[in-house]
């Protein structure tokens, strides 16, 4: 998996692929500060990678442009990497997306302010239930 990832990233670095705009969000801020966040998906060209067969990688890049007066700063961050794991027995490519946990926590925190009704987790016993997040939610939505 790790070796595969290295190969695949090299493919991206070599080919500067055509970009397809996914979304653009403008967040207005006070004091003439303007932040523009855009997400773009880059797809690398097909590369040959030994026993993995044809390899094509897709990365999603988040570009944050902050403009304060005349000063402009641009930050780019790879949000997710999609790499083939291996072709399965029918020859279909099988993909896994990779993301970092902290970003997911942010997303999840935002989602938490909306409605979460149920929590899936590793088996909690009756003894452990009192400390679980499900117990808190059950209490919050209490009858």
């Amino acid at each position, binding site marked *: 998996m790790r070796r595969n990832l290295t190969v695949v990233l090299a493919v991206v670095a070599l080919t500067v692929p055509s970009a397809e705009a996914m979304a653009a969000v403008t967040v207005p801020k006070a004091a003439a500060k303007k932040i523009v966040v855009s997400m773009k998906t880059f797809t690398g060209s097909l590369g040959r990678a030994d026993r993995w067969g044809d390899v094509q990688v897709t990365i999603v890049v988040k570009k944050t442009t902050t403009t304060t007066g005349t000063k402009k700063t641009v930050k780019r961050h790879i949000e997710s990497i999609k790499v083939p794991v291996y072709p399965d027995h029918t020859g279909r490519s099988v993909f*896994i997306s990779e993301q970092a946990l902290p970003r997911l926590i942010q997303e999840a925190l935002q989602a938490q302010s909306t409605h*979460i*009704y*149920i*929590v899936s987790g*590793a*088996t909690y016993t*009756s003894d452990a239930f009192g400390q679980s997040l*499900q117990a808190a939610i059950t209490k919050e939505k209490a009858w």
Partner: protein
Amino acid sequence: MVSTALPGMRRIEHVMGMPIVIDLRDDDAAEDLLDRAFDEFRAVDERFSTYKQTSEITRLNRGELALADAHADVREILSRCEDLRRETRGYFDARAAGTPGLDPSGLVKGWSVERVSNLLAELEARNYAINAGGDVIVRGRGLPDDCWRVGIQHPAMDDKVAAVVVAGDLAIATSGAYARGDHIIDPHTGGPPAGVLSVTITGPSLATADAYATAAFAMGTAGPAWTARLRGYEAMTILADGRVLKTPRFPSS
């Protein structure tokens, strides 16, 4: 949160050593619906518990009951355990659960939730969620204008979720080391799997999703590649180094 705003009714009972929550969101459900649902869980417990001296599983393990004489449900469960053991290359194994003899509890839990879900559907319930110790089935909608949203427990922070699954009709099972210590072992090494904090599997059957989650977790860092090949089931694996690996159609927002 104004609790009275939620439609339907909710109940929690402790059966099979775990809390089971049924959250029914239909306003027109029959009064005794939840009674009948929990009666069904208790009936499954009577037949399958490894703790009850009179259960069929206990009697099978003591040699007092022949497999051919066991209830059709017991034979079905044991047959599915064997199929899943082969499919998971021995990583899900009802014979390796720490006790001598058979312990199909890992499959019985999800199967019993499926069974109760089917019972609720037969009794004309349309919108409900069942959560048995962290294994979840949702059907219909959480609110008339909102899908079910199922938080996936964050493996490192008790009061946080790591992702939110948005679903209509779906089964969601999570395996991890955090809830009861290292309760899943790699049957091939006898030790806890390394490098993985939790595995969540979604798909049509909760029993199968649960067995896949147990197996993929036991595989350690080889689990994600295995989950990528599953047909009809999606996976999210949280690694110890903070990376989160998802199959392409994993239904998180």
